[in-house]
């Protein structure tokens, strides 16, 4: 699946690198004891350290370090047992210190690899350059007053993990898959909630283009703070077209920082290289180098939960699911957990089919997530059990499923209330079969004359008479026995 931009001068390909900022799940901020809770009244989760009061000093929160190590292990990356915090200097009203404590040339996590599962079933490896820990900034509110800006420091100092990819992606789809995969991994690990709409995961998108077949890296433009997978893909499409247009007109792409206008679906320049910040990174003298023993890494590694790639392999290997179905089920931890409840002790392929084919279409129609599913995993599992033990047929099960959507009741109750229990009583079925044969003299003639398809007419009659509840296997067998005798 190659993504090509047709230019006037030839075909171009796009080169994409991403920086994904993930807010670390922790009770307290990276260097202060203040709460990280989202949604508090403005400036209520701010310590004297966050507000950069004179003489205040940062002290590292060990929980955030553990979370970064965990995430690094999830990215199959090198963990650096010695890393260094550095100050990134710039002035802004929501950055009280006048610098962000980040990591520059010695990050806590080094190179790793992320495997992307593409829609066509193929997979692709993307290099991870690094993951580092840093402080989040506060929020500037510019729309509260015509002349003033308001500052909310609640988010100031919350720990972020910045995950930087290699420039390995070649299409908007790959970039989207990369971000979804990162989100999936951090959610499995419990290191970031991955909620892009709340800003707890944000992305800087680096895009350049080059003539197809070339391996040069041309000047890139960086679009900051893009907050949905769809927007990331839009940014790439827009940037690729814009940059090819510039080259086609004999121009040069300039290195710059851009911002995305989601209303118009376009990017525009924020500041050019001439106005670019010189961040003047240097090691933060308030903090000693961050050093931890390998045993800490080993301990975290031994307690790592099953990650999506491993879970997918298990679904394919043990459950016999197709790689595609397995990939769909493991992509979101909540989905995989739902599926495992449905499949527990039951036919896993059947469980996969019901979740993917029946449940997913309902969720997408209603535009809701699996955690808001009107049918609990427990109840869907029970429905499958009713099919397995011949209480209902698959066809009836679909009616029960519909009823469950409305009422949210247990399937057994719906079957009971609506009298949908399958008729397996041979006597009752036989009576209906006899009645159908008696009523269909013409059809009997046709059957005897060799038209076996007419059997379907008899089945229909029996099902009609039993309101669909007769066991289809028994009906078929009885009909054949009687008609052939």
């Amino acid at each position, binding site marked *: 699946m190659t993504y090509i931009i047709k230019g006037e001068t030839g075909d171009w390909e796009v080169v994409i690198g991403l920086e994904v900022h993930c807010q670390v799940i922790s009770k307290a901020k990276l260097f202060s004891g203040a709460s990280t809770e989202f949604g508090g009244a403005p400036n209520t989760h701010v310590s004297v350290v966050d507000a*950069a*009061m*004179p*003489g205040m000093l940062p*002290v590292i929160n060990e929980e955030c370090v553990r979370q970064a190590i965990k995430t690094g292990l999830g990215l199959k990356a090198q963990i650096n047992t010695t890393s260094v915090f550095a100050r990134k200097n710039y002035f802004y*009203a929501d950055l009280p210190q006048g610098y962000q404590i980040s990591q520059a040339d010695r990050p806590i996590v080094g190179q790793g690899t992320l495997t992307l599962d593409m829609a066509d079933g193929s997979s692709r490896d993307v290099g991870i350059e690094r993951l580092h820990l840093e402080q989040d900034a506060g929020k500037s509110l510019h729309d509260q007053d015509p002349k003033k800006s308001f500052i909310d420091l609640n988010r100031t100092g919350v720990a972020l993990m910045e995950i930087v990819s290699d420039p390995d992606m070649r299409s908007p789809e790959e970039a989207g898959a990369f971000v979804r995969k990162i989100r999936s991994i951090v959610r499995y690990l419990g290191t970031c909630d991955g909620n892009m709409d709340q800003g707890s995961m944000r992305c800087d998108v680096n895009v350049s283009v080059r003539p197809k077949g070339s391996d040069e890296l041309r000047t890139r433009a960086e679009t900051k703070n893009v907050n949905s997978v769809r927007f990331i893909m839009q940014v790439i499409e827009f940037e690729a077209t814009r940059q090819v247009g510039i080259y086609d007109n004999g121009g040069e792409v300039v290195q710059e920082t851009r911002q995305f206008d989601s209303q118009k679906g376009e990017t525009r320049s924020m500041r050019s290289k001439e106005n670019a910040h010189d961040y*003047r990174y*240097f090691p933060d003298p308030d903090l000693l180098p961050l050093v931890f023993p390998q045993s800490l890494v080993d301990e975290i590694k031994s307690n790592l939960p099953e990650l999506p790639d491993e879970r997918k392999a298990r679904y394919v290997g043990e459950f016999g699911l197709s790689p595609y179905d397995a990939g769909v089920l493991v992509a979101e931890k909540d989905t995989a957990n739902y599926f495992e409840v449905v499949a527990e002790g039951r036919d896993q392929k059947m469980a996969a089919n019901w979740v993917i084919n029946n449940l997913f279409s309902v969720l997408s129609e209603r535009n809701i997530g699996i955690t808001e599913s009107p049918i609990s995993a427990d109840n869907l599992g029970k429905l499958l059990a009713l099919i397995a033990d011949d209480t209902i047929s698959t066809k009836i099960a679909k009616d029960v499923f519909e009823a469950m959507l409305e009422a949210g009741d247990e399937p057994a109750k719906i079957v009971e209330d609506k009298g949908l229990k399958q008729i397996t009583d041979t006597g009752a079925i036989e009576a209906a079969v006899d009645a159908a044969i008696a009523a269909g003299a013409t059809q009997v003639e046709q059957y005897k004359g060799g038209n076996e398809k007419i059997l379907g007419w008899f089945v229909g009659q029996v099902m009609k008479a039993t309101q669909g509840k007769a066991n289809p296997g028994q009906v078929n067998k009885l009909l054949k026995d009687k008609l052939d005798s």
Partner: protein
Amino acid sequence: MNNLTDITIADARDKLASGDCSAVDLAQAYIKAMKTGRDLNAYITETPEIAIDRAKASDDRRAKGETLGAMDGIPIAIKDLFCTKDILTTAASHILDGFVPPYESTVSANLQDAGAVMLGKTNLDEFAMGSANITSYYGSVKNPWKASDGKDLVPGGSSGGSAAAVAGRMAMAATGTDTGGSIRQPASFCGITGLKPTYGRCSRWGTIAFASSLDQAGPMTQTVRDAAIMLNAMAGHDVKDSTSAPVDVPNFEAALAGDIKGLKIGIPKEYRMDGMSPEIQALWDQGVEWLKAAGAEIVDISLPHTKYALAAYYIVAPAEASANLARYDGVRYGLRVPGESLDDMYLNTRGEGFGEEVKRRILIGTYVLSSGYYDAYYIKAQKVRTLISNDFKAAFKDVDVILTPTAPSAAFAVGEKQSDPVAMYLNDVFTVPASLAGLPGISVPAGLSQNGLPLGLQLLGRPFDEETVLRTAHVLETNAGFTLHSGVKG
């Protein structure tokens, strides 16, 4: 010596214990002295009510037999770089106008917990940047010692207010901070004892930062014994400061008891600078003789990278300062000078709020960290810093203490050296190397210049070996027989 402002901490401890005087008596005597000494401009803020309250509390504790120790009831001054809860804290800068911290620095809290009575907040060079205490927004400080022609002299800096307060008997002792010599050089200029402990010995939490990797709080006192007593109350590991050292605090006063027989004293040849004044050289030689006479062995040593120390210091310290001072932006506290845009507000606030010397150092620091210059300046300076540390490590394999002059001259007149910042920076030439290496250093008044002004000798020790430094300093002090009362009227 009946005047309560003439006695040392050790004396006061005895008098308080015997009931010769009360903490309130001491506080009142010093409150009066602060008033009469206002011409020196040693204090930015006087806190007489707090002093009386705390002195009363001290006397109450003593009456109940619950005295907290040697510092209980001792009237001291706090350099106005230490944040003090509910009390104006200025760093001698316009930019901190009206700043009243809601917290107490660890060092001043430790002293308060030990029963010390705060008299007020002392003047200093703005953000501790200076060697003459002439950069304060609240005006220059005068040295209690006068030139022979009656001219006013600088007290040294940056802890000039603390040094002047102790020398002028407006505080029994004071806290200082030392980044490149800011305790030791003013101690030398004012004829008092100033101890810069090992980096990490005292917490930096709540002390307004100048250069984080160098700043260290210490006592400024009349005697070595007082310095030992006061350091015990200030020091200790603090989990709120990641660079504070998790090491035990010994009884420093007890360390004064032993002798220095067989102790090896290093004399670094690189401190014998071209054009060094003969009286400084003579003082240094005298110090050598005293220590030799006390049974110490004198060893000539080399600290080959000394000549690069000042240059490295004036890169590293401004670099850190340029970031440390970024928080003074007019947004949350202190001075705000409005502007049309956020950038204008920054320019107006910082333009008006910072003095010339602070601006100079922010500019130098910003420059040396800039892209394209970082390797040539900051990284190179850090490499020099490592070499200087290694020089000391090697020297301390052979010697126990190093003896040098504290400063290249006695106190100079107000107005001198002001036009040339580099001439001013040279004041720190003997103190800066130990700061870069994080080593403990003390300045002890050892004699008088030809003009009758105090001169100090400096002793440097191994990391966290303040005890040997203090014991050796005590020997120098005893031999020098220096007395404040020769030059400063009580």
